[in-house]
């Protein structure tokens, strides 16, 4: 029996030890917001926060999350109020097909938690592990810059 907290809700699930955290979220808990792209931890579509630290859930076993707190894309908005990163991705065209977007916004939130006012170089370095094939990234950078702006003093 595995006990984990996802987006503030606690769950007890009985799953095989080989189950990845991503499959556990998607198929055992029905949280399909996190996506599987590459399946080998390089594209970032499955990015989630484990006790606040960004990880690739496609190469983490679900048992790693035992007793810990997981934040997925479904947990970013506060009720119906979008996280600034989510709103900026809509306003500035930071997504197209949207399949990488859950990972992009989770990564961008983690970035702004760590560096509230990142430079372009810091954005590029942090977001390096999140592939996007649609946008060419320009509008992702613009979105993150915009999301950081209201936080500036």
């Amino acid at each position, binding site marked *: 029996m595995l006990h984990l907290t996802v987006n503030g809700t606690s769950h007890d699930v009985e799953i*095989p030890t080989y189950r990845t955290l991503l499959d556990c979220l998607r198929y055992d808990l029905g949280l399909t917001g996190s996506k599987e792209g590459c399946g080998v931890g390089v594209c970032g579509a499955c990015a989630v926060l484990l006790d606040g630290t960004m990880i690739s859930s496609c190469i983490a076993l679900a048992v790693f999350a035992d007793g810990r707190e997981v934040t997925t894309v479904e947990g970013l908005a506060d009720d119906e109020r979008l996280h600034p990163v989510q709103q900026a991705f809509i306003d500035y065209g930071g997504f*197209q097909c*949207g399949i990488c977007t859950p990972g992009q916004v989770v990564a961008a939130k983690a970035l702004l938690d760590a560096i509230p006012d990142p430079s372009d170089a810091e954005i590029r370095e942090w977001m*390096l592990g999140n592939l996007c094939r649609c946008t*060419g990234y320009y*509008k992702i950078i613009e979105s993150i810059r915009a999301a950081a702006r209201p936080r500036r003093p």
Partner: protein
Amino acid sequence: MTDAARPHRIVGQPIGRLDGLDKVTGRGRYSADVSLPGLVWGKALRSPLPHARILRIDPSKAQALPGVLAVLTAQDLPRVLVGRRMFDMPLLARDRVRFVGEKVAAVAALDPDIAEEALALITVEYEDLPAVFDPVRAIEDGAPVLHEDPGAYDGAPPERPHPNVQSVLRFKLGDAAAGLREADRIFEHTFRTGLAHHGYIEPHAGVVAIDEDGRVQVWASNKMPFRLRELLSHAIQLPKERIRVNLTPIGGDFGGKGSLMDLPLAYYLARVTGRPVKMVMRYTEELMAGNPRHPAVITLRTGVTEDGRIVARRVTALYNSGAYAAFKPAPSVNLGGASMGAGVYRIPHLLIESFCVYTNNVPCGHARSPGEPQMVFAEESHMDMIARDLGLDPAELRRRNLLRDGDLLPNGHHLEHVRAQETLEAALEASDWAKPKPGPWIGRGVAMCHRHIGVGFTNARVRLETDGRVSLVIGLPDTGTGAHMVLRQVVAEVLGLSIDEVQIELATTDTFETDSGVGGSRVTHTGGRAAYHAAEALKEQIRAETAKLAMPTASLAELAQAAARAGRTLEASYFYDAKAHGAVTSFTAQVAEVSVDPTTGHVTVRRFTTAHDVGTIINPIGHQGQIEGGLIQGLGFALMEELRTEDGRISTLSLGDVKLPTIADIPPLTTVILHDPVGPGPFHAKAIGEGSISPVAPAVANAVADACGVRVLDLPITAEKVYFALRARAPRS
């Protein structure tokens, strides 16, 4: 059409996508996210050999594994061949495999892990057959033949100079042979490009369920639901009325998501298990067997006058099509991008011949501007090499030969509103082409192309709801481009509504008779015009209803409610069918400025300029997103992406090895928009989806040659290639 000079309210506004809420919150349900009661998982076993006879398949151990519900081999399936235009591919290999990754068995199990374990328990005995991998070798006498009688396949084109030729596509103007004899100088160069995957982040996924009444329901990452229904009807031998394809969001397409892929197997597994079946490809399978962009070998032979005017050109393209033609949708079973062998130039005597060739490699399909990045790389590199040899500025050689109003394209269409020269000059100006380069080992390269505005047919229905909002019912999926937002803006503009008052209602294949789906830069045109005319018709109905009910001051909600009480729904449909390409195209000119590291050969793109001749822009965020996304795909094709193969085995089987561009790889970008509202789309829109990808590679290649004198004739332009070319040239110490 409306008066183009009239300012628009909604069209042209940079409105953020209303479907964005689903995308940024993770609520959107893609095909892989579809869940149904009793759902089980399907997986396919693939061939490890490029060409072999199948002697025996033993599924017994897999069948005995707890949790396995079914194992299928070709023996369990009807003898049906599938394809998009030419039907040459079995659902599962019957007695012979022709590429590494070809499916030989399929499994249904309670979860994906059990299904994968079961695959490992199936034993297949093979006997190797001689194989051929290079398209040049494949059409020589005595080459191993892949298909004994390709002409017998449904949809096979008749011309077949060699059994390994799938199709021949020809474009002809004047008399190329005679023209070449009249030239002062003749230049001939051969180029190669590599195998490239589309790189969408969503692997192919699909769910097939058979309802209690026997109807087949499909959810699939497929951009042509109506064509999918037809193709599936053939593959599973049921009338198309018995099949319903439900639209889902698509996680990137770039030309790759138009085929059946695993759906027929999912159906047969659903039929034998009595359960809904989900099949999701692993990305490894995508890279091994996902209908990637054709590698090409292209030779151009151009005759010019001493002052740099093109007299004649002959182009031969060999597209390495892999083991099956099944993934190509065009009636020619070839690649229209071959026509770009003429570039953006007036060439009085022209012959382009494009051959799609069978080899024991992964079957290739359509990828964003099919066949064109390959051809534009070759053609625009060739132009640069000619310019340098003639001692002309590469921009000047282009200027002297650019298409003008009334000129003919290779397909025989004449052109109007030609803005090739303005587009070129705009790119040169914005890139400081005429200014001295900022240092040594820095170079600039220019390249151009043009791209047609796509044609096809679309159904749209608009309905006034009793809450006063308008629903647009559409059978076109949004592959990610924001097409649905464009259509909403068109309807809101016509009806004088705010954008929030127009909602999208996704059709299924039950809703309409047909729709050509997404592809070929057509959606703004065909979907936009269908939505435009349907909205115009609804506007007329609203006017008539207002008069009939004598409610001149009523709101739309009040009107709809009153009409409903009278038993009427205000609803209009329109079927728009654009059959032939018009006389208008879109030009692109790009300039790359690169630096080359002389010690490593590494190429850095210092800045990039892209200029586009466009029509009315409906949504500037989406429009610019198409330019930027296509451009960075082009940059990956130019510098880093390649599925490396060794004897038919792809050795780059993870996204970590393929090297798609990351956020750290993108250069400073300048976009120049030349606005010319003359397109066939709604409000005179043109097309943009495929406008930015093709000239990137030759612009970079030409810049590398300018920076260090190294001419790379085969893509991608890796540091190794530049390094060894520099070393070969340097005097030995």
